[in-house]
């Protein structure tokens, strides 16, 4: 469920297809996420999952899988 919601966020934010948002997809190289996208991504994650994502946490993420793991970890 978490994964599906995160894929939806990427699709909505970046205008990519759900098929492109694989767990192994690299944020910068494959999905062209830049610094402003990262801010929007953290805001969208915060709103969707009712939690707080710090800038330094987002900056360390490299793949979609990293995003999923971060959120699952915060949700316990």
């Amino acid at each position, binding site marked *: 469920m978490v994964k599906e919601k995160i894929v939806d966020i990427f699709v*909505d934010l970046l205008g990519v297809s759900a098929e492109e948002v694989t767990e192994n997809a690299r944020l910068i190289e494959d999905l062209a996420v*830049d*610094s*402003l996208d990262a*801010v*929007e991504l953290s*805001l969208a994650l915060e709103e969707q999952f009712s939690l707080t994502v710090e*800038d330094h946490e987002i900056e360390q993420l490299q793949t979609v899988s990293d995003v999923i793991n971060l959120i699952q970890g915060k949700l316990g």
Partner: protein
Amino acid sequence: MKLTLCSCGHAVPAKCIHNNYFTTFLETSDQWIRERSGIVTRHHVEDESLVELTIEAAQHCLDGVPERVREKIGVVIVASVNPERIVPSIASCLQTPLRLSEDVLTFDMNTGCSGLVYAIEIAGKLLAGMEEGTYALTVGAETLSRMTDFTDRSTCVLFGDAAAASLWTLTPGERDTFSAFTRSDDQVLFTDERGKIHMEGKNVFRFAVTTVPRLIRKTAEMADITLSDIDFFLTHQANSRIIQSIARDLKVPIERFPMNLEHYGNTSAASIGLLMSELWHSGQLDGEKTLCLSGFGAGLTAGSLLLKGHRPHVASENI
């Protein structure tokens, strides 16, 4: 009574600077600037003064109205973050060259990039206490190039110089709705000890994309209309990515968020007036239009002003 737009005008300096100019002395590229800001060119002053630019914009605005209307202008407000002199105010410098009455109330104000929206709201409140048929002239005027740190590649590519004027009066109709926001913060967007602009871009982005949609929804609720009833969202032209994010949050088609920052960059308090003037002179503000003006910037401040069912007013109707 509601605020009604009667005319618009603008002025930009002659010198136009393309993104490629910055690649001659900074590690940046045209593509990087376009992708992160949407900006391609901006205008910078050379010998022009801010007062001269302001007069030119105001003259352009008043060119379209009968001469007698000038005598009925009771309020002039200039929003600017960088007047060349503390006194006299820029607004007071307009009285003689624009042939305005000596009864006119003039002052400058600084609310960062929210300035023009605040000026228009204040103008409406002042007009409500004046004789019917009185007009207000609001101007956003900036020479940000004089406050720009050209060694800071993250900010120096963003700013441009411009002045934009709009003429308003009150006509029968539902009152406008306005929402303001202020949160004291002198670390995100401020001028340093040299008077140069320092901006934490990501934090400004975060502030704008969370605050502006909330204010727009609030003003629409106060006016008892839905977002689909709003024809144009005239948002401070800071960055196309911010505007796209606001549109996405509101689930409003981006086509209803006109933009001209590609040509002018971020002109602070002048930007919404510049956009409004271009729409006015291209005939796109004709007919019944509901407008939502939203500014955001240093303070941190933001403001949204909703002009419901806005029908441009022919200034001569009132005289």
